[in-house]
């Protein structure tokens, strides 16, 4: 699922001495009583693809628009390459934005659209022609230069928009749902094109998306947003494997969450009793939580094993009946109903064409590795 990008090989975010390229300092944006963005701080490093991931209305677009200068923060400051951007209008920022609707100028052809920003900066004519041609070749639209936007397909429009925002060589490129309007196949293809383009040009990207798969594919790091706050920021695998809260675990990928109580809390392991599960969960690492506190154990569906024979041990084992099966080709999703009424989601890769089939209403045992559950306290 997670294909990390090669854009940032080292991990500057782990180096406390590294200088952030974009620094968001305690930014808040209120619309009346409503806080669209609530006290967000962020450090983004040069050459990163940073994805702001969240459901609609979580404030991700507002944050992006503040980076672009289209919204003024109610409080807080933004630095880009060391320069304070407070009060700097969009037309003076070293930043370009690719709009969700692409916002191509309908009265100009592809070439004029791409050249627009350069003309505005009074770049010499010969240089404009050269840079536009290079950029159009890069996005494979060289032969479409004279077409008007309404003569282009969705994917082509997307490339024109990308070329138009990259041709000015911005320090920072903001992309608002860059692939939202494309169909699935094209989207996957374009994701990788976007990564290789970013790799070639070395521009820092900030991408807003609601599609977690897109975020996983593109991002060097993801900032998961909820209700105006960044609830967790980290690499795709950190976000997926070590979510810091129920919300993140649930939002990124699918997950089974069992509420329970700590009954044994040792430095090397913990044991959780869960009524929802009807059993105990043994986790092979220590956690920091108050004793007797309510905790949640999150187990990813692909980390749950299903068998008809009872596995060894008493921890991490439950019994249930298969309620539903979704065959997706590469893998199958099983919904298993436990005796407590809780439904557990299990995915199994279809490694063999003639696998021994588990069918509806069959009694099965579920188990998982003690290292698999993630214990969160909120």
């Amino acid at each position: 699922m997670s294909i990390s990008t090669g854009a940032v090989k080292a991990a500057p975010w782990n180096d406390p001495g590294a200088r952030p390229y974009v620094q968001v300092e305690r930014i808040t944006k209120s619309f009346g009583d409503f806080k669209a963005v609530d006290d967000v701080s962020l450090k983004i490093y040069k050459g990163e693809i940073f994805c702001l991931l969240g459901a609609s209305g979580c404030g991700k677009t507002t944050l992006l628009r503040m980076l672009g200068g289209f919204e003024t923060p109610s409080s807080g400051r933004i630095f880009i390459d060391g320069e304070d951007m407070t009060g700097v209008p969009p037309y003076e920022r070293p930043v370009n934005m690719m709009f969700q609707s692409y916002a191509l100028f309908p009265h100009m052809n592809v070439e004029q659209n791409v050249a627009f920003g350069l003309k505005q900066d009074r770049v010499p004519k010969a240089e404009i022609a050269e840079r536009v041609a290079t950029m159009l070749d890069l996005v494979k639209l060289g032969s479409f230069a004279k077409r008007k936007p309404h003569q282009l397909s969705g994917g082509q429009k997307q490339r024109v928009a990308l070329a138009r925002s990259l041709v000015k060589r911005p320090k920072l490129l903001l992309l608002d749902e860059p692939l939202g309007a494309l169909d699935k196949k094209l989207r996957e293809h374009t994701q990788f094109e976007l990564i290789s383009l970013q790799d070639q040009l070395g521009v820092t990207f900030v991408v807003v998306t609601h599609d977690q798969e897109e975020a996983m594919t593109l991002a060097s790091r993801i900032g998961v947003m909820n209700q105006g706050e960044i609830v967790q920021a980290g690499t795709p695998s950190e976000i997926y494997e070590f979510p810091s809260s129920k919300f993140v675990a649930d939002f990124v990928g699918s997950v089974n969450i069992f509420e329970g109580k700590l009954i044994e809390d040792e430095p090397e392991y913990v044991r959780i009793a869960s009524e929802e599960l009807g059993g105990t969960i043994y986790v092979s690492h220590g956690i920091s939580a108050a004793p007797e506190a309510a905790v949640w154990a999150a187990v990813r569906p692909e980390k749950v094993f299903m068998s008809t024979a009872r596995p060894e041990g008493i921890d991490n084992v439950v019994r249930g009946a298969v309620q539903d099966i979704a065959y997706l080709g590469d893998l199958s999703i099983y919904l298993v109903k436990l005796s407590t009424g809780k439904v557990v989601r299990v995915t199994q890769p279809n490694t063999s064409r003639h696998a021994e089939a588990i069918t509806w209403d069959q009694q099965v045992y579920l188990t998982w590795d003690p290292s698999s559950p993630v214990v969160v306290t909120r």
Partner: protein
Amino acid sequence: MKTTSRLQRFGITGRGLVVALPYLWLLLFFVVPFVIVLKISFSDIDLAIPPYKPLFEWLGKNSLAIKLNFDNYAFLFTDSLYLNALLNSIKVAFISTLLCLLIGYPMAYGIARSKPSTRNILLLLVILPFWTSLLLRVYAWIGLLKANGVINNLLIWFGTIHEPLTLLYTPFAMYVGIVYSYLPFMILPLYANLEKMDWTLLEAAEDLGCRPYQAFYKITLPLSRNGMLAGSMLVFIPAVGEFVIPALLGGPNALMIGRVLWDEFFSNRAWPVASAVAILLLAILVPFMMWYQSVQARESAGAR
């Protein structure tokens, strides 16, 4: 069902009827009157009722005399009055259109960019004057502009002036009247055009380095060209033939073709000459309308 099939046998279909109705309308209220006026313009003046000689005369003995008189048209070009009136009308209409555009554009823009709730109120305010007759509103302007009218009294009261200004029966008053009356015809098509505008285009332009006024000039203005054209035509075409406003507000030397037409028709009872003036006016306006139509057609075929 039986009736439809019977109708269809005569080639009458629902679709045909729907298409035929507007054609019938045009035939009755445009083509027929036009032919009548055209016919009168080629006839001789006569002291009779109606005051012109017939074009066709049955002489008996199987012969029909058709007498086409081109004198009326020739007369229009010999007496400079007509040509001057025509040129003046075009000038007045052109300046009025320009003024309407200059005043109407910011208004339409403001309405299009306002909140949807206020937008409806603003649109209503634009349309509201139509609820009173044009004549009444023009008379109201007389009350405002005359020597002891509202404007002069106010200015004297403020001490700005000591003698009343001559406002009424001047070209100024005429322009005020025309611009005031035709402004909604400029605002409404412009608004309809600007309302469809994708405002993120302006953000995109700013993002690419445009200051707001540059974004307006490079994006909004070219994209609203159609609206400007539609509004301008809706103002220009009727303004050329405008009669009431120059007659009431413009004073004696406001020489407009509509006024000349009126005088020829009612004062001089020279129906043939009046008809020739009308035909000439139409001949001048038709190219404008055709140009406008072709631009509209090209735009709608091109975009989207």
